[in-house]
């Protein structure tokens, strides 16, 4: 058995922050190796060191038995290492073929026909199919992930690093992806998967390495562990039992979505005659792969896009006839998808950001005058609610990490007695404890009579935290009558019934 990758005593400091400390990683050639840990555990940092994107402060590593020291990613690529990061690097306006070749063109001139032939051969080997002349913007998330893997093969990578490869995929697509990876491994490749989804680790990987807080915790064959033990190793303490919630079946409707049709950005219908309701006190999860119309549904609820058809009724109030400002006054609160662009003003202090969206409501304003004192207190309270780590609430929002911004934004959304909470990927960037805290915060508001709609691309998260799950697929809302993962998975790809 030979080692494809051996990293020893890796340390990395960003200024005063010790992101990695004495971390080891041994990956056997021809296997799928899982690297697990919470957000901020250092998984991605370790992989970026291996990929030559950043340099380790301490430690050494060997690739295929050879000491390696990459000046940059180009060096790593020459050594046969490839990496697909969490955010795809595909340029939507280019064709699939152009994306495939980008940065690794065969020469100064490009023979498209020869290139396409080689691309097709690579795809066939993996059992993929591509329309090479189509724009990459037409790809589904699963298609984009496949193209990313082909990009690695195009570059002749033998050691592939995949960072959260299934984050955007449906259960069926995830299984198919691992099927392809197993085939690659059978052909002699080595795969390192960075993930936080334990079922995947248990089902598809041979070995697992656990990191926590930038430190190496353990490495063992998957066969010798179980999900409960892994979860405990990842978090560092025993997991508390899931909180028990009971939602009265006969609770009155809080929100009714009736025959809702919303235009997508290409002019097609992104939400198609959706009808469902949310009861008072209920947390409803919306499952579905990315781009199934969740975004447009939320836009319609918030008021940033117009309805083509249908009604939105909150209590006995026609939501869709009112402005965003009026909806906020009625108690709509959003935890937005993109906190940088939609949730905060990054150059502003936490204190100023505390009022964003609540700026007209007492106690933050008295009439049209800003109440500094109240805003100051509110900011402190919002930061405290989900343990936002910050260097003072007068510091700019940009000084916070993404996860901490998310905590603050969640704290703000729950601050002034929300009535309808719209949460788009509320756990994004949060560790397991923080995710639970945010959901518990949402439960608290629900017990006071609010309701919550949660969109997540992580079905396991929804299964764990939501009272009921509905599914969106191609703009159509379906309501599975079971909480079975496989049943919901079939709804997500539209093969239910």
């Amino acid at each position, binding site marked *: 058995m030979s080692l494809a990758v051996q990293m020893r005593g890796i340390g990395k400091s*960003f200024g005063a922050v010790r*992101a990695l400390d004495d971390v080891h990683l041994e990956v056997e050639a021809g296997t799928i190796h899982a690297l697990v840990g919470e957000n901020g555990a250092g998984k991605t*940092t370790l992989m970026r060191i291996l990929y030559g994107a950043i340099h380790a402060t301490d430690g050494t590593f060997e690739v295929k038995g050879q000491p390696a020291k990459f000046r940059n990613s180009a060096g790593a690529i020459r050594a046969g290492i490839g990496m697909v990061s969490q955010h795809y690097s595909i340029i939507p306006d280019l064709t699939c073929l152009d994306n495939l070749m980008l940065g690794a063109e065969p020469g100064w001139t490009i023979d498209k026909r020869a290139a396409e032939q080689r691309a097709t051969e690579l795809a066939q080997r993996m059992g993929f199919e591509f329309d090479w002349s189509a724009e990459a913007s037409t790809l589904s998330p699963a298609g984009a992930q496949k193209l990313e893997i082909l990009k690695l093969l195009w570059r002749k990578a033998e050691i592939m690093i995949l960072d959260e490869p299934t984050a955007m995929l449906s259960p069926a697509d995830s299984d198919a992806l691992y099927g392809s990876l197993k085939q690659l491994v059978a052909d002699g490749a080595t795969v390192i998967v960075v993930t936080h989804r334990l079922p995947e680790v248990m089902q598809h990987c041979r070995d697992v390495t656990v990191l926590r807080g930038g430190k190496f915790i353990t490495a063992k064959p998957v066969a010798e562990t179980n999900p409960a033990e892994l979860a405990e190793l990842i978090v560092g303490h025993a997991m508390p039992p899931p909180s028990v919630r009971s939602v009265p079946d006969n609770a009155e409707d809080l929100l009714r979505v009736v025959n809702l049709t919303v235009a997508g950005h290409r002019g097609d219908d992104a939400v198609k005659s959706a009808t469902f309701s949310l009861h008072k006190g209920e947390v409803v999860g919306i499952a579905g792969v990315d781009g199934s119309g969740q975004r447009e549904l939320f836009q319609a609820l*918030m008021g*940033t896009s117009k309805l083509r058809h249908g009604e939105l009724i909150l209590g006995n109030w026609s939501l869709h006839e009112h*402005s*965003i*400002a*009026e*909806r*906020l*006054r009625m108690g709509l609160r*959003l935890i*937005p998808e993109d906190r940088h*662009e*939609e*949730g*905060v*003003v*990054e*150059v*502003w202090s936490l204190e*100023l950001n505390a*009022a*964003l*969206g609540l*700026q*007209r409501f007492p106690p933050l*304003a008295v009439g*049209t*005058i*800003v109440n500094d004192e109240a805003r100051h207190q509110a900011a402190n309270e919002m930061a405290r609610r989900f343990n936002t780590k910050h260097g003072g609430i007068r510091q700019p929002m*940009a*000084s916070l*990490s*993404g*996860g901490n911004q998310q905590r603050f934004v969640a704290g703000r959304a729950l601050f002034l007695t929300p009535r309808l909470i719209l949460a788009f990927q509320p756990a994004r*960037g949060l560790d397991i404890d923080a995710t639970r805290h945010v959901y518990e915060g949402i439960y608290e508001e629900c017990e006071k009579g609010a309701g919550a709609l949660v969109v997540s691309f992580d079905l396991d998260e929804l299964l764990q935290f939501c009272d009921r799950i509905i599914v969106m697929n191609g703009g159509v809302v379906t309501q599975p009558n079971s909480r079975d993962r496989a049943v919901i998975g079939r709804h997500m790809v539209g093969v239910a019934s």
Partner: protein
Amino acid sequence: MKIWALLAIAVGLVYGALVVAGAAPADTAQSLIQGSLGSAKALEGTMKHFTPLLIAGVAVFFALRAGLFNIGVEGQFTVGALVCAVVALRMPGWLGLIAGILAAAVAGALWAYPAGWIKAMRGGHEVISTIMLNNIAGQLSTAAVAGPFKDPNQQGTTTASIDPALMLPSIWQDPRISAALLVAVLFVIGIWRWLGRTVPGYELQAAGANPRAATLAGIDAPKVTIRAMAISGAIGGIAGALQVVAYEGRFFAGFSSGYGFDALGVALLAGSNPLILFPSAALFAILAKGSTTIQVMNGVPKGISFVILGLLIVIFAAIRYRKVPVKES
């Protein structure tokens, strides 16, 4: 702290520039100060620059807070001055003075409005549209005082003059300081309080800093943009009007000596704090007035003041807009 840093840069640059120009730095700096602050007459001249720079600076500053780079203050200043002179000359007494200033505010707002509308509704950049509006304002106002509003009793392209007794009074004699200064100071303080203390002020700055987040916070960002541009234009128009009723008494072709453009520098140096408009406008005014003295006394070309201001703004912008390293998440 920020002001001291700024002052340090300014002093260094003054010295540096003078050395380059081949003059004795200490002597030249002395005549610069002497010529701008050293006597009642010098101070009077500096104040004449300071007042319009300050108000026009407020106009630019206000738009900047709303995320708009209003290069059109020069045009709004010109249109405001023309309209003020025309109205004041046609109405009797004090009524003319007040009506003239109000009309100038309306004219400035209307002159800025298209730029705001195009930006908010069509995404057209306000820099382009305001530059074009500046050119139109310059040509139209010249045509106006060459044609319909020309004083038939005079050779040049100018309106008639307002009765000096009906101009804006002074609040101080020797050096004579016009009440326009008071108006300017009130504007700065008013804007400072409005932006910092009121909900509309907060919303305007939110729309300027992140329109998407502002929209989700219930703020009608396009409306705020259009309104902010119009208000900025109104302030620019008032700056022009005050120049007529406080100092010139008339409007003539080539009325503005570039106050609207200098105001861009004044506002940029102020950063996000309106109170820094005071030292910032003072710096511009002192250099504008003092540079005439150093040309006469020390033989240093007057243009050196522009070199200094230009360097200052470049250095300041380099510090202020430097790239902040992206955080590892």
